[in-house]
């Protein structure tokens, strides 16, 4: 099962994103992004269920909240950057 991590440059932007997504009924967990998907170390992610990923991307674009990357992550597999 996949999870999607929307990566943000700052915790403040990630917090704005989480609030915007929850406002649309999307379950959004604010987390420290795993090191494997933080090339510069210490970034913040909003974790989304796979089924919500496209809608989440659309909501964030509508709210004018930009993210730096999206990764699809599954246990035991390398993270894969995706473009939504």
């Amino acid at each position, binding site marked *: 099962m996949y999870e999607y991590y929307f990566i943000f*440059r*700052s*915790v*403040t*932007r990630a*917090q*704005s994103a989480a609030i915007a997504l929850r406002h649309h009924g999307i379950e959004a967990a*604010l*987390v*420290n992004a795993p090191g494997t998907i933080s*090339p*510069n*170390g*210490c*970034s*913040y992610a909003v974790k989304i269920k796979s089924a919500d990923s496209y809608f989440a991307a659309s909501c964030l674009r509508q709210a004018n909240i930009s993210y730096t990357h999206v990764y699809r992550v599954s246990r035991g597999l390398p993270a894969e950057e995706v473009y939504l």
Partner: protein
Amino acid sequence: MIYLDNAATTMPKPPAVLQAVQDAMTYMGSLGRSGHKAAELASETAFNCRKLAGELFDAQPEQVVFTFNATHGLNIAIKTLVSRGDKVVVSGFEHNAVLRPLHRIGANVVIAGRKLFDQRNTVSDFSVAIDSDTKAVICTHVSNVFGYILPIEEIAEICRQRSVPLVIDAAQSAGILPLSLQALGAAFIAMPGHKGLFGPQGTGLLLCGSAPRPLLEGGTGSLSKSLEMPEFLPDLLEAGTQNIHGIAGLLEGLRYVKNTTVSAIKQHEKALIKFLESSLEKKVVHTYYSPDEQSGVISMLPTGDNCEAFAQKLSDGGFAVRSGFHCAPVAHESAGTYETGTVRVSVSAVTKAQEIEEFADYVNKVKK
């Protein structure tokens, strides 16, 4: 004690502010660092504080940077914009928080608008002074000595038309007068958390309309593998552990201001100052007062006494005021009180009319 030194710091704070600080010390970790519940709570509190400040001052949360006080914010703004020899236009009522950094940098400071309580003269002077050589305009919104409300909307309009960045010192106006980062188009607006916003000392906000340069470099909890400070706000300006205990208190202070409303606070303070001015006997003290262009700060000169001795008499009577030069020598130069200083009385949203009445009665009696 009847506390009338709110221009220095507001006191007492709303009970929710005290509770928030205690709760933060009990339950909150460091914001923007770890992923555990205590850190999450800290991050959420900080975000809510930025968001509410953004609503009050028309800014996005990321544009709201936590500082230690207004002086810290002003130093960031000034050192971003100004280099040695640059022409900077300031008002005749600036605080040393503006003047000392400019002096240290070696800026060419031009003072515009020296007439107390004369907004038309202030606008006209600024219009003449601001030209193509002007690197920045720095202006206090309200004089910390005299309570003079400067016409920052008109000054901001001049700056926008001439593409000159504007820095506003909102130390005496945040939470008391309307302030909009967007409407003013200011490059930076600096404010303390512990005056009109009723937060703890050690807090402040810098609203960033322009890209700043950091004063400090250090850990931000972001992009840790890079030796460069992050380029984005607010992280660019928030190196080191932030004062989350203070920020939690500041959030409650902002809620107090929002619930009370800025317009009610403004009306309350103006009414108290008007009442005070009308209650003081003219032969006892000379007051610097304007019915239209003054906020909740008023300065006075006692007859037959120096200001320090008079302030001591007031303190002996249980009244807390401030005497001297109020870290604003230029303001005293402008108003003609450079030799004597003044005694300053400053109210807040929680000052009662009865306290002003008692103060006026005591002043009138003690001077006889």
